[in-house]
């Protein structure tokens, strides 16, 4: 098992996902470069958090990993198989290996199905014909996500449950086929503060118990610490910094990471007395991203004739940390 731990489960190599824009429905009018050159490896039982603002491409990255978008260049490889090249039979296998936890539990569950039916659905699709076996597995997974007593929930409909309970159902559905990888897209952003941590801890516990690999996508840096050691920061389609979360919070390298950390508040009465230093402007258009570093128009440390000309390479200012910024040349 320990051996398998270090084996690569998911490998993302120079991934580019572009969406074509069309003028009047047919003329080519450029591309939205939602993901533009992302590379990383995920090992068995490993967790990664991907942090970024809306429009940075994190959801497109996630959808590409799930096989919902096709990359224009580069590849996503799962256990040695490139997922863009899977046929429909293999794709069915792949979908049983990857669980997806949606952002909005209120919208992710069919309102006309009971919880039992919702959780059975993946089992039916993946060919478990014996209803007794199905119910056994539904009950088991409900115990695991602490929807207990199970009897109270089996025959309820989604509208009868609170947000936290719904998110447990979503998680149960994602793990019922015993996948190797879970992709969680902002799993707690729609929930109340007091429930958030509970759900994160539940996910973490499941991850450890089943040696799941998890990709946790979020915009909220303050929740990352409770979930993942490794964190990637994305900006405008690129991963700009890769680090462990503790060192990232203590000494962020990329100016965008610095800004993101500066903008995140902790509850403190002093906050009301000061203004926050923030980079001006808004994230760039992904149709025509700025030349060179995509953050340069907002960057306080921009180096003229370098940052606005050449795209930064990945540098390693200290071991285990990578940053795409010319400051660390």
């Amino acid at each position, binding site marked *: 098992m320990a051996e398998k731990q270090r084996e690569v489960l998911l490998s993302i190599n120079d991934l580019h996902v572009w969406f074509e824009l069309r003028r009047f429905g047919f003329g080519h009018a450029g591309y939205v470069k939602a993901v533009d050159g992302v590379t990383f490896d995920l090992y068995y039982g490993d967790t990664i958090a991907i942090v970024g603002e809306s429009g940075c491409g994190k959801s497109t990255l996630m959808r590409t990993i799930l096989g919902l978008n096709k990359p224009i260049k580069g590849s996503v490889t799962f256990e040695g198989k490139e997922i863009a090249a899977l046929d429909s039979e293999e794709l069915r296998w792949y979908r049983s290996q990857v669980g997806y936890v949606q952002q909005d539990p209120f919208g992710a569950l069919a309102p006309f199905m009971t919880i039992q039916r919702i959780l059975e659905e993946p089992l039916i699709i993946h060919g478990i014909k014996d209803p007794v076996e199905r119910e056994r597995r539904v009950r088991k997974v409900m115990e695991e996500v602490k929807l207990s007593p199970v009897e109270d929930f089996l025959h309820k409909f989604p509208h009868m449950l609170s947000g936290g309970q719904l998110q447990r159902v979503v998680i149960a559905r994602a793990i019922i086929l015993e996948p190797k990888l879970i992709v969680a897209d902002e799993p707690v952003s729609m929930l*109340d*503060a007091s429930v958030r941590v509970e759900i994160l801890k539940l996910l973490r516990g499941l991850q450890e118990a089943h040696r799941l690999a998890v990709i946790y996508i979020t915009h909220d840096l303050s929740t990352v610490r409770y979930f993942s050691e490794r964190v990637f920061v994305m900006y405008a389609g690129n991963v700009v910094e890769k680090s462990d979360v503790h060192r990232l919070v203590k000494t962020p390298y990329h100016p965008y990471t610095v800004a*993101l950390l500066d903008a*995140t508040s902790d*509850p403190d009465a002093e906050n009301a007395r000061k203004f926050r230093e*923030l980079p001006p402007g*808004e994230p760039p258009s992904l149709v025509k991203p700025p030349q060179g570093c995509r953050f340069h128009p907002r960057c306080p440390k921009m180096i003229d004739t370098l940052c606005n000309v050449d795209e930064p390479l990945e540098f390693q200012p200290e071991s285990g940390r990578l940053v795409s910024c010319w400051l660390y040349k």
Partner: protein
Amino acid sequence: MPRDKLLRIENLVLHFKTAKGAVRAVDGVFFELGYKEAVVVLGESGCGKSSLAKAVLRLLPRNVERYDGKIYLEDSEIMGLDEEEYRRNVRWVRMSLVPQAAMNALNPVMKVGDQVAEPAMVHFGVKKEKALVEAAKMFQHVGVPVDFLNRYAFELSGGMRQRVAIAMALVTAPGVVILDEPTSALDVLTQANIFNVLKRLKQELQVSFVLITHDIATSSELADRVAVMYAGQIVEANDAHSFFNEPLHPYSRMLMASVPRLRAENEPEFITGQPPSLLNPPTGCRFAARCPQRFAKCSDEPPVFNVGGRQVKCWLYEA
């Protein structure tokens, strides 16, 4: 009432009629707000905080079962005003609202400049040209380029739309602006930006804010005072400094302990259980079922105790 308070709410009640009985969404709310101050109403979903915004501004749906209490604005009581007086003299003249999901609250087929100018035209009867000048001024205050006056909402980013909604609430120069979850749909940087704008407005325009939110961390960006709401009631009202350092009510303490923090190594704790239904809230303290410190007395409804100027609705603080 003391003249140094701009807004004071006493025992505000708003119950809704439903097929299953009365939903006691706002059930005895109190707080006060000084000049150039911001009070944060903190509460989780379903605690009645958005109904509170509606109750204060008298934006009521049809199924109201009970609506009473006292709202003092400067030196006058406004609950007693009739509908027409309230519309003419209070709503949007002295008190306005930035609605929840303000990003989508703008009219898609009207230029944003016209939308911001409209309250001034309606309430003060000024000509459109003059109202647009006012709107342009407001755009500058909230940090939207003035040439955006002629744009439509879909041409603006989320942060810009939020700023426009704030400008719309400010154009009539009201003393109080109620902000209902103003930044919950926005990104971290945009959110921090909006809070910078609100802080500046508080100084520049002498305006006071009631900020209704569930987000404890960002609420501290604006708060001078904090009122914590649970199951339709205010359980604690405190100044921000002592609230963030030493919350009194067990619910406030647990809520604070549940916040994930970026810069501290604490392990957040969650609150077990669910808030009670507002259809049939328990008699006695509404938090008792989830409270680790409950004792015999909690089956009676606690009054509001005054602990060194801080108000808390909990038997633990009985003198």
